[in-house]
Structures are given as C-alpha cells and as structure tokens.
C-alpha cells in the first residue's frame, strides 16, 4: 500500500540531490577556472570561450543563494497548512518557486535544468487534492509545458540565442584524466535526478489510483446503505397510507354508514306509513332529518380528523408561518414569506388546500430542485381572486412531467374551483389563483 509519507521523503531526497547537483556544477566553474589560471592557459581559454565569462565565484554565490531561497520557500510551502486549503495561494507559491528555479538556472549559466523537474514534483504533490487536477487536459498541458521547458533549456539550443559559457569548454581545459570523469559525474547526477523524478511520478500515480479505489469502495458502501434506506422509507409510507385508509373506512363505516343505514330503514318505514298515518309519517321524517343532521355532523368530524393538526388552533397566516419555520429549521432552505390576504376568512377546505400546496411545493423545491431559497407571496390582485406565487431558485425543469404531487395539487385546486399553473424556467414557479367568497363551491 503506497504511503504519502514515502512520496514526501522521495521529494526531500530529490531536493537534496538537486542541491548537490548545483553545488557540483558551481564548483566545476571555480575548479576549472582556477586550473586554467594556474596552468597559464587563460588566453587560449578565452579564445575558445568566444566571450567574456562571468566570475566563477559569482556564479557559485548566486546559484547557492538562489537555491537556498528556493529550498526555504519550498519547505515553508510544505509545512504551512494555509497553503493546503487555499488553491490560489498554493498556485502563487508554486509560481514563486518556478521564478526562483529560473533564477537558479540562470545563475548556473544554464548548465543545469534538472531544477525544473523538482518544481514539477512540487506542483503535482501540492495539487493532488484539486478536483480539476484530475482532468486529463490539465495533465496534458502541464506535461507538454514541462517537455517544452526541458527542450528549450537545453544548453545546445540556448547557446544559439545568447552568449553562454559552455561548461564543456571549461572541462576541456582540465587534464585529460579529470575532465571526462567530471563530465561523467555531471551526467550521472542529471540522470539520477531524472530517474528520481520518474520514480516519484510512478509512485504518485500508484498512490493516486489507490486513493481513487478507496473512495470508490466507500461510495459503493454508501450507495448500498442509501438504497436500503429508500426501501424502508417506501415501506413505511405504504404502511402509513394503509393505516390511514383503514381509519377513514372505519370512520365512514361508523358514522356515515350508521346514519345511512338508519336513514334507509327510516325511509322504508315512512314508505309503509305514508298511506296509513300521515302524522306518524311526519314524525318519522323528523327522525330521519335528525339522523341526516347527525350523519353530516359525523362526516364533518371525520373530515376534521383528516385535516392538518396545525390548522386546528391557529389562523391560516400563523399556521403557515409555523409550518415554514419548521421547514427552515430542519433544512437549509431560506423561505421568504409575504402574506397580503389580510384577515380573509376561508372555508376550511380552502385553507387545507393552501396549506397542502405550500407543503408540497417546498418539498418539491428541496427534493427535485435542490433549491436553497423559496419565496412565497400571497397577494390579492383584484376583488375576486386571491393569488399565491411560490418561486424557488433551484434547477427548475425544462419539461414538466406531472407526478403524484403535481396531480394532487391540481386536483386539490380543482376542488376549490381555483386555477394552478407551473413554470420550470429560472427555478420553479407555481401560481395559484383562488376565487374569492361567493363563487365558492361548498
């Protein structure tokens, strides 16, 4: 199982290797120059160099100082947690590191470009958690950029565009048993750096793949649990519905059923009595009337038991506010509620419908629209209509396919002789028109 710790220690090894490489290259300049002067080859050296060289000690100082700054910035970058959270800051510091690497590269008179590999490693390690970093395009771009950088920073290419001291000329002036050996060492360090870079890349890829696997396993586990929960919820809903259905049936059977049976029996009696005794018939009809009234009362009672409990004790406005507050408390949704219906006195059925539509709409906004803001406006555009507009900022719907909820809303509005319309553009909007008292159907 690849560990992140190993990756970090590999990176640290690479940092040290680069330090060594820079030390080596910078020392080469000093060593070769001193040798040339000591053996009085200065003039020939200058002739073959084609231009005025920089002071080798300046090269040494500049490269060591710039690399030290780079190393400090890098360790600061890795030990400071602030960079791990802030993408922008992280990228800024990578950019600063890149600039410093260019300084190191220039101060070594372009003889060593392995330092850019180090920056690249730093880039991938610090960006490993970025979402878009996994995009192939970004990867491709970074890799192409790196290749381009490595190609153009090659000495043999750059020396065509600017005057540069060629380290191989320095080495040529060293005795024949030392110069080639140093060149071999120089190349060996460069290759070692490259190998380390590839090793880190491979290790990183394995690490990343493993992480991905881990996440996938966990996701699978979570979705399984989710599925079971859904099943359970469906089951419990079904049980609740069934229980309600049985209760309603029982209520009807107990109240309306009794009354209707009584009425039917009473009417049978009157049919027999009507020709025999008019007065007895009248008495019987009064009895039937009482039974009918009792029946109506029972039906009302049964209906009352079905209505939302909230509506029992409050006005419509207060009940709505209470319900909306509950919604706001249990979810993150922000609800904007404006009520301009004043003290309109609706039928209980109408109040029910309004209550249920709002409930359904908010549930839909949360469940389907993933909205985090809903505005509900209850207005009275003219004397004959009460209007309610429910609007959310969710995903909306290009094409509205009526489901159970919407169908039920339509049915409910139809009961109170109102109108309802839906709009899925720019969030989801529901407009409900309710006719004012008088036209109402009882």
């Amino acid at each position: 199982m690849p560990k992140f710790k190993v990756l970090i220690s590999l990176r640290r090894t690479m940092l040290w290797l680069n330090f060594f490489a820079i030390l080596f290259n910078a020392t080469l300049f000093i060593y070769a120059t001193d040798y040339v002067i000591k053996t009085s080859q200065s003039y020939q050296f200058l002739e073959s160099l084609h231009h005025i060289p920089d002071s080798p000690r300046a090269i040494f100082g500049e490269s060591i100082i710039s690399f030290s700054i780079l190393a400090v910035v890098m360790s600061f970058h890795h030990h400071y947690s602030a960079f791990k959270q802030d993408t922008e800051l992280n990228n800024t510091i990578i950019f600063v590191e890149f600039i410093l690497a260019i300084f190191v590269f220039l101060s070594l008179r372009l003889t060593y470009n392995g330092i850019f590999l180090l920056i690249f490693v730093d880039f991938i390690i610090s960006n490993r958690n970025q979402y878009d970093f996994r995009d192939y395009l970004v990867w491709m771009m970074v890799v192409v950029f790196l290749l381009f950088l490595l190609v153009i920073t090659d000495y043999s290419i750059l020396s065509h565009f600017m005057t540069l001291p060629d380290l191989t000329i320095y080495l040529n002036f060293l005795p024949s048993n030392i110069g080639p050996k140093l060149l071999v060492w120089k190349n060996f360090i460069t290759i070692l750096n490259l190998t380390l870079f590839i090793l880190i890349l491979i290790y990183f890829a394995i690490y990343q793949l493993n992480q991905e696997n881990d996440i996938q396993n966990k996701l699978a586990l979570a979705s399984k649990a989710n599925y079971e929960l859904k099943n359970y919820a469906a089951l419990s809903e079904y049980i609740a519905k069934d229980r309600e259905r049985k209760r309603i049936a029982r209520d009807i059977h107990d109240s309306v059923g009794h009354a209707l049976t009584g009425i039917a029996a009473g009417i049978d009696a009157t049919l027999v009595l009507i020709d025999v005794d008019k007065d007895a018939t009248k008495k019987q009809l009064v009895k039937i009337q009482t039974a009918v009234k009792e029946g109506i009362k029972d039906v009302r009672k049964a209906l009352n038991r079905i209505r939302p409990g909230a509506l029992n004790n409050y006005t419509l406005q207060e009940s709505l506010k209470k319900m909306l507050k509950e919604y706001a408390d249990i979810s993150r949704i922000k609800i904007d509620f404006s009520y301009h219906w004043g003290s309109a006195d609706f039928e209980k059925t109408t109040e029910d419908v309004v209550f249920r539509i709002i409930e359904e709409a908010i549930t839909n906004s949360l469940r389907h629209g993933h909205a985090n803001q809903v505005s509900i406006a209850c207005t009275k555009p003219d004397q004959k209509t009460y209007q309610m507009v429910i609007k959310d900022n969710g995903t909306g719907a290009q094409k509205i396919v009526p489901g159970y909820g919407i169908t039920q809303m339509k049915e409910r509005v139809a009961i109170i002789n109102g109108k309802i319309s839906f709009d899925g553009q720019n969030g989801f909007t529901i407009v409900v028109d309710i006719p004012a008292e008088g036209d109402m159907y009882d």
Partner: protein
Amino acid sequence: MKRKNKIIIILVTLILVISGAFYWQYRVKENEKTLTIGLYTSSSWNVPNGHQYKVIDYAIRKFKQEHPNIKIKYESGIQQDDYRNWLSEKIIENKTPDLIIVPNRDFNALASEGAFKNLSSFMWQDNIKNSTFYASTLKAGQYGGQQLALPYEANPTLMVMNKTLLQKFKIKTPSYDWTPQQFYKLCHQVTYSNTKKKYYGVTMNYNWQDAQFAYGAQIFNKNDGNVELTSDRSRRAFALIENIVNDQSTFNVTSQLFDKGRVAFMPLGLAQYRTYTSYPFHITRNNKFLWKCTKMPGMEGIKATPIETTMFAISSKAKNTKGAWEFMKLLCTNKKVQREVMKTNMGCSVLPAVVKSTQAQKILDEKVINFHNLTIKKLDLIMKDGAVLPKFKDYNDNLEKLDYKIQNALKAGNLETQLFNIQLQVNQSETN
C-alpha cells in the same frame, strides 16, 4: 490568518528589495572612488625606454587635479609579452581593470569576445569628433561598426634610406609620392650595380604585406575574412616581392647589413627610427653613412603606410565606467598628455593637432644627431597615409598561416603558381 500571511510576505519582500537597492547604491558609490587600469611596463614599440610609467604617472597627476576623490590603481611590472595572459586571467576571474591598454594585435580577439564597452555614446556626449584623431588610428579601435577603443599612441612605418649609398649611385632621393614601380626600379639599380662589394636594394623586412599595402590590395574579405590573393592588385604586389627576392637572390638581407651600409632601403618604425638616430643609441649602431627617411611607396591615392596603434578601451565589466572614460579621454585627447606620449614613448601622437604643432618638431629634433630631416609636415603626411587593417576575430591567426605559406613559396620560387592553392588552403582551414 490568510490576510495576515499576505501582509507578512509583502513586508518581507519589500524590506529585501529596499535593502538590496541601498546596498547597490552603496556599492556603486564605492566603485566610483577607485579606478583600476591595466598596463604593461615597457614601451609598446620594443625600443629601450628608461621611464616605464612616466606618461601614465603624469596623466594621473593631471587627472587628480580635476578628480581628487578618485584613486587610480594599476599593477606595475607586467611585461608586454605577459600582458595578454595577464589580462586574460583578469578577464576570466572577472577582475578586469576598468581601463585597459590594448595593443593592436590583441584588439580583434578581445573585441570579438565582447570585452570592451562601446564608446560612441561617450564620444557623442563629450562632442569628440572623429576628425580629432588620425583616421587610421581611430579605425584601429573599431570592430563590427562600433568604436570600442580610442587610439593612444601610434608607430607608423617609414622607409629609411642610406643617403650616402644613393649618392654613390647618383640616385636622387625619391619624392614623397613614389610608386612601387619607382621603388622597384631603384632597388633593381642598386642590386645590379657592377661594384666589387655586393649592394642590395631593400632589406627583407620589406615583406609581401607591405607590397600589398603599396598596391592597395584587400587580401581579406571585409565581411567573412576569406582570403583573396588572386585579384589584379594582389598579383602585382606579389610580382613586386618576387622580383625583389629574385634580384637579390637571398633572404638574408638583414638590418645588420643595412647598418653596414650595404642596403639602400629599409622599412622601420618611427619609434625605432627616432631611437636609433638620436643620442645615445645612435652611437651604438656605429653607422658611417647619412640616414634619411620617407613615406612607404604606394600607388597614387592608396594609403600604404602600416601604422601600429596602441589603444585604450573600457572593460565591458568596468565598475567605474565614468571614471574610466574621463581618464581615457585625458590620455587620448589631451594635448599635453599626447605630447608627453610622443616625447617619452618615441612613437607618434594620434592627434593631428599635436603632430602639427611646433612643440612636436622640437620633440622630433630632440637629441637627434645630424639628421634634421623628419619634419612635422612629413610626419603628418605619413600619419594620414595610414593603411586600414581588416577587423575580424581570427585576423592574426589567418595572417600567420598565410605568411608562413607565402614565405615558403617565395623561398621555393613558385609563389605565382602556388597563390591559388594557398588561398584555397587558408580559406578551407578557416571554414573547418
């Protein structure tokens, strides 16, 4: 937290930048207080010279009067032969002096490597016109169209003659505007005289290059430095040399022979001429004949006099450029300093204004024994006759190769047939 970090980073960078700027300014100020010069000890012209740093010390004293704050440093005791190596070492170590004396032969190589600063802007600022200097001496300091060095002293080659010998053969002293043909005629006449003792026309240091100058042949292509030996002028110049060699049938016509009075003509540098015709060196030569000098022979309208020029240049990595330029200006354009150069170093000043002055005549006549024949008017003419040498990096190398091959062909007596081969060989080795 994040904001705080940003502020800290910005502050640290700001402090670093500001302190860096202060340090930089301090360094610049410190550098302006000292001026380093690279010099060699002996004369540029290989003539005995008792007072090695006399002119420089004189110039430094003058400079101090105007710039008392600048301290001038130079390393003494460097021989001219070691100078090239010494300077290379300094350049490699990046310890190049601000102001460097540059002999003719080292100029091309150093200039091509970018060792010198371009002086055009300084000259323009201080309104130094090209006509201030003799044209050929100024051109000696140009490379790739840039003025990289100013001439400091010059040593034109004169044609010295044995007046006594010429009178013996009843030959009139040649005029100043004599052609190579006239020159050859006189040489031929002297060499083919039927006398007991063998006399010669000219010493062998009149070489093929002098002949090329005389005919105004451009043997090096200005653009690529390729050798071109087969032009009409070039061929005629080679013919002259071949004829002289064939006539005299020997290469051993040396200056010793001239001193013995057996040769009519000898090219000689002005510095050498002045040294050996004046006290005390004239005595050592023990000549028993009269000396006279004239211009090198040349075709009409051709500038045929080889002039060696010593220059001063500012190092491209100079720390005190301003000071270097001020001192250089003093050395190269100040009349008093230039007069001192002419007096002490035995060469010639590079300023026409100095050469034409009556003081210059006094300098020329100083300690001269018997021969009051070099007038400032003649010297001015000679200086104006200076040939311009090609400027490219491997000039010295190519010239050496060419010289070796041509000398060999001359000795073998087949120069004319070899010319094309030599040209081909040199150009090929150039491209490789």
